[in-house]
């Protein structure tokens, strides 16, 4: 579906995307990365808005640059707000459908259906200037879906949505995927992506760090030093126990919290309950610091640089 080969994009001296190689089969993918990681640049390359400085981009087997045929099969919802204030949502979506080459009649019906799908039928004839942020986001999504594309590309689609709206959008996108269509959607929040798809691409600093399901990514991380934080009423005794049992590479005690670095977190999780029962020590709280997204990225970056 999408193939990028050694794609690099430079903005002058700034690297947007760096030696990106990726092949995606039809399906749903989350593009995950912190702000400034190159997600939007990547989407601009896939949608033909930018030319790669090096490498090639292929979408559905064709170059996306100035490709009218491809644009008919693709729907894009960018992150920027670019709606005309003095027209209604319906007029705007209909106009964009006319640009797709749909007849006036088909554009009229398709616009209405798309806006109904995203929950905007009650307000579609109002001026966009009167829309809330969430309503604008729904309208943007409608214009991406209205011409029934094969591939949908969304950049931060949940921006501006309240929790109810997020849930509704999640259902729409799950249904979309259920119809056998393909989806790529970019976000900097892991849980947004996990609610839609289990396959994601991790990007940071313009590089692809990892791709696959959550389990596959965590499996990559197995064997890497993990940090686990344990809160206990007797932190020093707990630290001594872990060192005695050789369950830790290093131990740090700060303010009643024991932070353990270990290359075998699975063994720790497995044996800890037994040790606690034998010694009578109490653990009131436990979490892995590496479960945070930033920690995941940090570890992957270290892997990428060969530091791990």
């Amino acid at each position, binding site marked *: 579906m999408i193939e990028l080969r050694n794609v690099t994009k430079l903005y002058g001296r700034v690297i947007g995307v760096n030696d990106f190689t990726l092949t995606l089969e039809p399906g749903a993918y989350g593009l995950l990365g912190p702000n400034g990681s190159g997600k*939007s640049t990547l989407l601009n390359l896939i949608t033909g808005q930018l030319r790669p400085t090096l490498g090639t981009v292929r979408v559905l087997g064709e170059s996306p640059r100035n490709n009218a045929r491809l644009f008919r099969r693709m729907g894009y919802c960018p992150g*920027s707000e670019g709606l*005309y204030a003095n027209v209604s949502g319906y007029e705007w979506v209909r106009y964009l459908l006319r640009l797709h080459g749909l007849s006036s009649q088909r554009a009229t019906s398709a616009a209405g259906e798309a806006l109904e799908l995203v929950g905007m039928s009650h307000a579609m004839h109002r001026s966009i200037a009167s829309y809330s942020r969430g309503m604008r986001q729904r309208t943007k999504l409608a214009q991406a879906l209205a011409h029934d594309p094969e591939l949908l590309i969304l950049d931060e689609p949940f921006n501006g949505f309240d929790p109810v709206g997020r849930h509704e959008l999640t259902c729409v996108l799950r249904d979309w995927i259920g119809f056998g269509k393909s989806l790529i959607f970019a976000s900097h929040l892991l849980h947004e992506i996990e609610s839609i798809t289990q396959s994601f691409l991790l990007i940071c600093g313009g590089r692809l760090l990892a791709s696959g399901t959550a389990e596959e990514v965590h499996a990559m991380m197995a064997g890497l030093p993990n940090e686990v934080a344990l809160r206990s009423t007797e932190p020093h005794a707990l630290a001594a126990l872990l060192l005695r049992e050789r369950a830790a590479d290093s131990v740090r005690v700060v303010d009643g919290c024991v932070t353990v670095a270990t290359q075998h977190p699975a063994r720790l999780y497995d044996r800890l309950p037994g040790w606690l029962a034998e010694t009578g020590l109490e653990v009131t709280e436990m979490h892995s610091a590496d479960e945070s997204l930033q920690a995941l990225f940090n570890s992957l970056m270290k892997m990428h640089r060969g530091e791990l």
Partner: protein
Amino acid sequence: MTGNVAAVFLFEWRRALTLPRMAWWALLAAFPAFIIALIRFTALSSPPRDLWAGTLYALVPMLVSMLGTLLWATPAVSSELERRSWVYLAVRPHGGVAVLLGKYLGAVTWVVSTALVGLTMAVLIADSDDGWRLWWTMARLACLACPAYGAVYLLIGTVLPRRAMVLAVAYTLIFELVVGLIPAVVNKLTVQYRLRALLVEWCDLEIPGGRQSGALALIGDAPPWQHIVILMFLTAGLLFAATLVLRWSEFASSAETDV
């Protein structure tokens, strides 16, 4: 592609029917009439036909055509970029080119309507004996000037969208108004040269010093059809260049930079 261009043209015209845009339309249409009235009602006697011809030429094929196309054609791309709506258009089949040409057509028709209405009012106020001939000459010149200037400004706005308006004004001042008066080969590259030649021919104006004088370098001696053909080719060529530049250009969208 034709359907796309038509869709853009109709959409832009619908958006043009708002109070601020109609106010601009009215201002540009009324200005020639105001100036002609100013001359007519402060002059002690009826000015000669040549003075009316020169003034109407300066007002309609020059001022209204230039200003109108400057306002609507120059920011064809930059207005969408500023509004961050360009990407929505560019991901449609032939979207960028359709927007460019559709906006160009919308701008030209808007300005031609302004010019013709303004011209009609001005000629009626001037009350010249040769009013019909003046009207017909200026109407034809406006119908040639608007597409030509629209194409020039569209190209400028596509090549350098960020500073389009200032560069278009600078082009007009330096190239059309100053270079256009240099009696040399270079002035033949200007739109003004062609329009001036047609004005002299169609209005049968007297050339200072006669046809053997240096003034001939400012109007040439080519037949009118040649000037018209050259203007049409120039217009088409500039439009083609603008579409090529657009296809080559890169305009990225970024959620992070959205304010």
